[in-house]
């Protein structure tokens, strides 16, 4: 049943994950069925905040014809904006001074003047908070969760995760072959600052010897003991998967380099004073490097660290993410058609439901202690570091 013609917009907040085009396709096709018009906002909200930067004025008309072959494509036709925040827009004022200004009111006014009734926003955790603030200021919106780490709470599965998982598994297989060939222990770090889904599920799929995730503080001596036994039994290689947020149980071990810089940092910053203030940003690759060194020291077997990092974000979506993206996009239109606003589409099998944004922010979907994936991993003899 067609309803009154409405004009809605769709934008992509945050960085790329596989399946973004599928969400756009799903939303456009579903809106087309309702007789609605859909426009895409370029580069997060930049298309509306800086229309002069775009030959098409920052808005792209999205039709059934323009999207029907799009869902399988890698990339994102609207462009992404990893740091598009209308509350802190960097600009240069009349005195040539760089400053961050709040342009959220401008944005909302432009949305009104463009006769956009609502915005479907595809977001990760950070962009979700920004969207929540815009909603509190009056924006009618529905969020679609995206995450290659599957760490968006209140949804069972974010699109993008399955593609990242598939790539991680393929790469881990290669890493294992490389370890076999070189007779070493491969230590592969994957994304997962707070949640270990990617490391756990990928590590399980390739039957890694150990998987270290943020949810379980690891005991490196236990991991090393298991690896030593494996080598004593005749094996010549091993594979350990670590999430970037994995931490040892006997924290806090400040790296030597940070300790050396302590006094300097403390003198510069009152927030960094004292030994306990030696908070250090762990760069991508830090965990793989640390674990590789520790295991080499404890096993006398050569190790090599490998970091997948942001590589898992690239590439085309898998069949699962295409379906999921299409479903999320279509569900977002359904939410608007049912007069929902300020909600996030949530996959709660077998349903797609709508949860308030207030319930979705500040939550991270971590691996619970009774997770079936943990049980399976343990039953396969995979050490989880505890």
């Amino acid at each position, binding site marked *: 049943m067609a309803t009154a013609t409405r004009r809605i917009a769709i934008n992509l907040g945050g960085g790329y994950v596989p399946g973004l085009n599928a969400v756009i396709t799903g939303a456009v096709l579903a809106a087309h069925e309702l007789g609605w018009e859909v426009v895409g906002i370029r580069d997060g909200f930049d298309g509306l905040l800086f229309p002069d930067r775009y030959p098409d004025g920052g808005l792209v008309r999205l039709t059934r014809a323009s999207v029907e072959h799009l869902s399988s494509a890698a990339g994102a036709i609207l462009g992404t904006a990893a*740091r598009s*925040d209308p*509350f802190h827009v*960097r600009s*240069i004022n009349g*005195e*040539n*001074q*760089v*400053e*961050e200004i709040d342009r959220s009111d401008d944005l909302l006014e432009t949305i009104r003047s463009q006769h956009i009734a609502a915005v479907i926003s595809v977001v990760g955790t*950070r962009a979700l*908070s*920004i969207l*929540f*603030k815009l909603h509190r200021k009056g924006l009618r919106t529905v969020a679609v969760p995206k995450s290659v780490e599957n760490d968006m709470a209140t949804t069972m599965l974010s699109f993008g995760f399955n593609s990242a998982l598939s790539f991680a598994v393929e790469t881990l297989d290669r890493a294992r072959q490389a370890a076999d060939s070189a007779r070493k222990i491969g230590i592969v770090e994957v994304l997962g600052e*707070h*949640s270990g889904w990617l490391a756990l599920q990928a590590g399980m799929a390739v039957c890694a010897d150990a998987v270290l995730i*943020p*949810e*379980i*503080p690891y005991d490196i001596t236990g991991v090393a003991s298991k690896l030593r036994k494996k080598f004593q039994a005749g094996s010549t290689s091993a594979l350990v998967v670590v999430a970037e947020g994995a*931490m040892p149980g006997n924290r*806090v071990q400040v790296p030597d380099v*940070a300790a050396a*810089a302590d006094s*300097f*940092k403390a*003198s*510069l*910053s*009152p*927030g*960094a004073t*004292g030994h*306990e*203030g*030696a*908070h*250090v*940003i762990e*760069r991508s690759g830090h965990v793989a490097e640390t674990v590789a060194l520790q295991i080499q020291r404890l096993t006398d077997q050569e190790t090599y660290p490998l970091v997948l990092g942001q590589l898992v974000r690239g590439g085309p979506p898998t069949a699962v993410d295409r379906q999921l993206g299409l479903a999320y996009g279509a569900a977002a239109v359904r939410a608007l058609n049912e007069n929902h606003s300020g909600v996030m589409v949530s996959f709660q099998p077998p349903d797609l439901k709508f949860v308030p944004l*207030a319930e979705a*922010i*500040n*939550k*991270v979907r*971590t*691996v*619970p202690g009774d997770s079936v994936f943990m049980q399976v991993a343990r039953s396969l003899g995979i050490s989880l570091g505890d």
Partner: protein
Amino acid sequence: MKKEPMTTKAPTGLVLNIQHFCTHDGPGIRTTVFLKQCSLRCKWCSNPESIHPKAELAYNPGKCIGRKECGLCLKPPFPEGAMYVIDGADDKVHVNWDLAGECDRETVAICPTQALHLFGQEMTVAEVLDEVEQDGTFYRESGGGITLSGGECLLQPDFSAALLAEAHQRGINTAIETAGNVPWRFMEQVLPHVDLMLHDHKLTDPVRHKKWCGADNSRILENFKKAYETFPQTKFIARTPVIPGVNDDEEHIRAVLAFIRPYKNVIDYELLPYHRFGESKYGFLGRVYELEDFTPPTSETIHRLQEIIDKAFGRGGTPPTA
């Protein structure tokens, strides 16, 4: 130019930090006063807490004792959604930087371990100088004094001028560190009270300056030239923070030398090898350090560039260590 003491009621300034016993911000042992607000956004900035013109929240998870032991920041008067805890191994609080902006000083003070902290405090000239003068013995012995830094100290011209004028009244040597991207009237207001101006020449090309620092350098160069000419009694030292792949080329060094050498009051040109010590502070502020894959320049690079400078100033010398 005659240095007039400030007789009007001294204004307050937004002070980030007062650092004692500094040896790299001018002659002798000095006390450096960091002021908040900057008009550039250099991607390698080692003082990100000095950039914004208001007091701002910082969080050091290394000091947080967690929800079970404390949890005070998870309740009012902290703004709804500002702080949260992730279920899992880590009991520490996390900050939602998009929702925590409304935390005021009284609210932040509730944190018993000072894991939460507000960078920036309003201080009077007298308050700052009383703190600075604790090091008076060291100034007299070493020829040191006070250095205003930031941020960009010239963006608080009333306060900076009043502070430095009063320092002069108390017999304290004065220096400032500036990037120079301010209206000329600000620089003109402060410089009469400055003995030494340390100033940055970050990049030569205006387009590349805008790319890496957020704004072009046309006004900066104009200001520096005016300053050299308007204040012949003031000493100037040019500086370049050497960033690999950005400005570690001989062309930039030679261009700076060509700019400064005609002026006798520009007494030196120093290289500041890029370091990563400010990196952790980006985490305290919930920001992303964009140069995380950069490494400090090699000692060979610094040596090669320093040789060009030494030759221009007609001297040999020991290059700074990278």
